[in-house]
């Protein structure tokens, strides 16, 4: 009987502490605990890091050696490294963001999500924790990409600060893309469907951009498309921050896209998560 008394005092205390509201510090603590969960999952399933570890290596080698000669002229691969590696930084964010969509779709089929949703935590914290960990994965991929780039002769024509700026900008844009794919992952029925739709969107955006080749070499209509493609802006910004040149314009446009995408898709994703049964 005494135990029953003890259990009943809790709600009274919790209510007194602020009517169930979740404070900022508590929120950060929840995000931390959930991010830890996502990291432990990776530890348990190391294969899930293959994309992050191998994608930057394979893509860089492929584009520099297979297409580099054709794009920049035989013997000019060296020059192409400095063109394509900053572009690949932009692409990496998009590919990892897509994996977030399939991963979250799979994750949300599990009973543990019901437990999270019946706990006194902000529902957004589950999604934010996922983004935090995925940004970490993206940083690892970016570092590997730069490592391979340096091995192939990438040279920084600016300074470390600009390089860090390029990495940060890719991360900001990548995080905004993650919200799109989280929304997609929460909306579609299977991870396969998410992947299918994501590929359809991804391919034209990646190749119809300035990532791999100069838009001036493309037909007019495609060149027009690359100009409005935010991936081009990000690639141009990263390129300027590594190779030198005018930075401000493309950086601002990329930041505007990031803020816009996040402002629209993040609330939708959280609402979707709240309603999901």
């Amino acid at each position, binding site marked *: *009987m*005494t*135990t*029953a*008394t*003890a*259990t*009943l*005092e*809790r*709600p*009274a205390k*919790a*209510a007194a502490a602020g*009517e*169930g*509201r*979740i404070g900022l510090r*508590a929120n950060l*603590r*929840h995000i*931390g*605990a*959930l991010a*830890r*969960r996502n990291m*432990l*999952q990776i530890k*348990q*399933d190391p294969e899930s890091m293959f994309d992050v570890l191998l994608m930057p290596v394979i893509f860089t080698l492929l584009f520099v050696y297979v297409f580099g000669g054709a794009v920049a002229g035989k013997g000019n691969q060296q020059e192409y490294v400095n063109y394509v590696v900053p572009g690949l930084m932009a692409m990496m964010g998009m590919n990892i963001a897509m994996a977030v969509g399939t991963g979250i779709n799979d994750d949300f089929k*599990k*009973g*543990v*999500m*019901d*437990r*999270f*949703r*019946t*706990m*006194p*935590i902000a529902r957004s914290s589950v999604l934010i924790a996922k983004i935090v960990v995925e940004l970490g994965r993206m940083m690892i991929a970016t570092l590997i990409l730069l490592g391979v780039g340096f091995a192939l002769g990438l040279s920084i024509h600016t300074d470390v600060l600009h390089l860090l700026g390029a990495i940060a900008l890719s991360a900001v844009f990548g995080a905004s893309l993650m919200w799109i794919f989280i929304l997609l992952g929460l909306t579609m029925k299977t991870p396969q469907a998410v992947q299918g739709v994501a590929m359809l969107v991804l391919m034209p955006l990646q190749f119809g951009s300035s990532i791999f080749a100069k838009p001036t070499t493309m037909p007019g209509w495609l060149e027009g498309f690359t100009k409005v493609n935010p991936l081009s802006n990000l690639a141009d910004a990263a390129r300027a921050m590594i190779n030198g040149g005018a930075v401000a314009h493309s950086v601002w446009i990329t930041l505007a896209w990031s803020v816009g995408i996040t402002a629209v898709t993040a609330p939708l994703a959280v609402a979707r998560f709240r309603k999901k*049964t």
Partner: protein
Amino acid sequence: MTTRLSEKGAAVEVRGLVKHYGRTKALDGVDLDVRQGTVLGVLGPNGAGKTTLVRVLSTLVKPDAGSARVAGYDVLRQPRELRRVIGLTGQYASVDEKLSGRENLYMIGRLLDLSSRQAKARADELLERFSLTEAAKRPAMQYSGGMRRRLDLAASMIGHPAVLYLDEPTTGLDPRTRNEVWEEVQRMVADGATVLLTTQYMEEAEQLASELTVIDRGRVIANGRVAELKAKVGGRTLQIVPTDPARLSAMATAISDARLDGIAGVQTDLAAGAVNVPILTDEQLTAVVGLLATCGFGIAHIGTHLPSLDEVFLAITGRPTEPRGPARTAAPAENKEEVTV
């Protein structure tokens, strides 16, 4: 004894709860109470609305009409407060399969605002209590079904919930594992937990619950103390298999004709080669066995069992649990297939 609700106070109060999915009425005006410190069994077949009820009471689903209060908090107006006082163990283990038992419990402790040290201590305490200490470091996906349910129960207990929902806690478990889970639930109840238990099994309800609410197609069709409902459905069934199958009907007739005190409704079960006799007391059991001995019937096998959910339903509603049964009272066009949301 400071903030304690009155002895008779209801920890869960449900009034006129309605939830429709399209034309399917998962909940069609449910009223029920779970008294402080007791276990209410919610008994019903698949698709009766049990899981929807639990999901409404745990803020996962919003009802279309009606009200529900848990530990004084309204499910619609105070969901955040309500989530602080409930624990949920679902039909499917709601733990993270890739995390170890200890990591799962630690994570939930942290999400419930325990300090790192407190969360670790609480995790170890519960692992010990649920006999999972040895498996603490293994990922939950390597656990047996029973271990997973125990981990799930442990996870629900971390925050000392005032009210615990157990949604079909033993569905799909083998008898031995089922007993393990029952023991744990009985311990929680002994410690003073208030529990709402959904089940498809009369036996489970009898083991764990003090009161029962029987629901079907989203409506309460009976409620009361377990003993009362059992008496209503005829207590136990005595099953007797004669040594000579040819004397099956002779045996049934002999029992009926003897007009023993309180015995009626003797039936022959040709498939099982047995005579079924509904009984309420041990004296009746003795009387039937004595009668058969006197009349010289050889008995190959004899046993008693609790009425199944089907028999309970038959007794209460006069029709079987089969959702497409002919004696339907609801609108015939309506599709009442299983609703698991």
